[in-house]
């Protein structure tokens, strides 16, 4: 039996109300997958970028859960980075969206294929 089995099935070090790491990891994975599906299916650029934010959020939840599991604050420190990157990505992506909307009067992702230079 490998290490991760023990890791996911064992409870948190301090009392956590019967929850295991697997609970949080599953919610995080489900949130990530919802973001992936939204990114693949929606055609509105703003919603596509919202879905990337949701994927960031899922990664942050997994990091916080691991940080709690190992009683180690480095995971939380990394979440600060995740939020920073998300903010930077939002600023740049929304600037691009505004630029595209001024050019094309549309938010459809298909418009990107014609926008070069």
């Amino acid at each position, binding site marked *: *039996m*490998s*290490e991760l*089995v023990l890791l*996911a*099935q064992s*409870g948190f070090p*301090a*009392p956590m*109300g*019967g*929850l295991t790491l*697997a*609970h949080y*990891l*599953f*919610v995080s994975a489900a*949130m990530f*997958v*919802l*973001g*992936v*599906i939204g990114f*693949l*299916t*929606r055609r*509105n650029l*703003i*919603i596509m970028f*919202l*879905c990337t934010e949701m994927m960031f*959020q899922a990664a*942050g*939840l997994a990091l916080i859960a691991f*940080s*709690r599991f190992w*009683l*180690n*604050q*480095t995971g*939380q*420190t990394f979440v*600060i*980075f995740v*939020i*920073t*990157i*998300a*903010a*930077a990505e*939002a*600023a740049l992506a*929304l600037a*691009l969206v*505004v630029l595209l909307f*001024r050019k094309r*009067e549309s*938010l459809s*992702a*298909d418009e990107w294929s014609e926008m070069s230079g």
Partner: protein
Amino acid sequence: MGEIIHPFLLYAGIAVGGIGVAASLPRRRVSPQLLGGLLGAIGLGMVLLGFTLRAADRTPDQMPSIYFYVFALIALGAGLRVITNRRPVYAALYFILTILASAGMYILLSATFMAFALIIVYAGAILITYLFVIMLATQAPSEEETDSLTPYDAEAREPFFAAATGFALLAVLSTMVVSGVRGLPRDGIATPPANELASLPRRVERALRAAGTIEPEEQLVIGSSGLALVDAQARTARVGIPADGSFTSIRDVGLPEDLAVRNVESLAFDFLNRHPGTIEIAGVILLMAMLGAVVLSRRQVELDEELKRQQARPLGSEEMA
């Protein structure tokens, strides 16, 4: 895998959830969003309850935490609405709900600082930027049809294939969670907790005084490294009476039970003591993003003088008359 969840329960839950999400994605004809949401909730609930039942077998004395299920349901339900709602404004508002529920889960994981940072930065700043852009970059509805949807909002692209791909990914991810990856190192991941109380002599001293453990003239002994001589493992501290540069009548006292390092303090130690460069790097990233956004969105609106005069005329026409 059977020790964490029954495989049938896991894959059946994921499949039901996948069908639910695929059904509720926007489509030309009517898309059964309520049914899809219900199916998704049933699938998710099956898997989470499966985890809980197996966990309850091992630790039967612990009551299940109802808050986790409430937060998980709100987070994923709002996440489903983000990707299925036809109107971008509502999608952004539902995403705020997802953020708030995630912040609740952060608090359950005793990451209080990150929970509030998440609410302030995400729900307060990033999502408001999104809302501004949505309002800037949306065509004003014409007079005859005020409730029109743009074609790219009304219809999802390949909902079934995307949902199948996404939930295959979810099945693989959760299989790895519950059955493990071979070849991972056993040890060396967890680091011993830093002795943070040694760097907080004022707090230790105040707690000791409040507990009545030390005399009024006694103080914590500061070692040669500049840290207080606090042993976090044995929960003792060394105190003495200061007398011209050294300490007399030195003794060890036990720390009070309720003296613990708070989340913000330990996060600050990790952030500024063990990873001192992070805040500068984060600042540089944000500066670069700000410069990039300014450069990208700075574009002069070309209006020649004749056009300006034409557009100004309707405004000034009343004064002329």
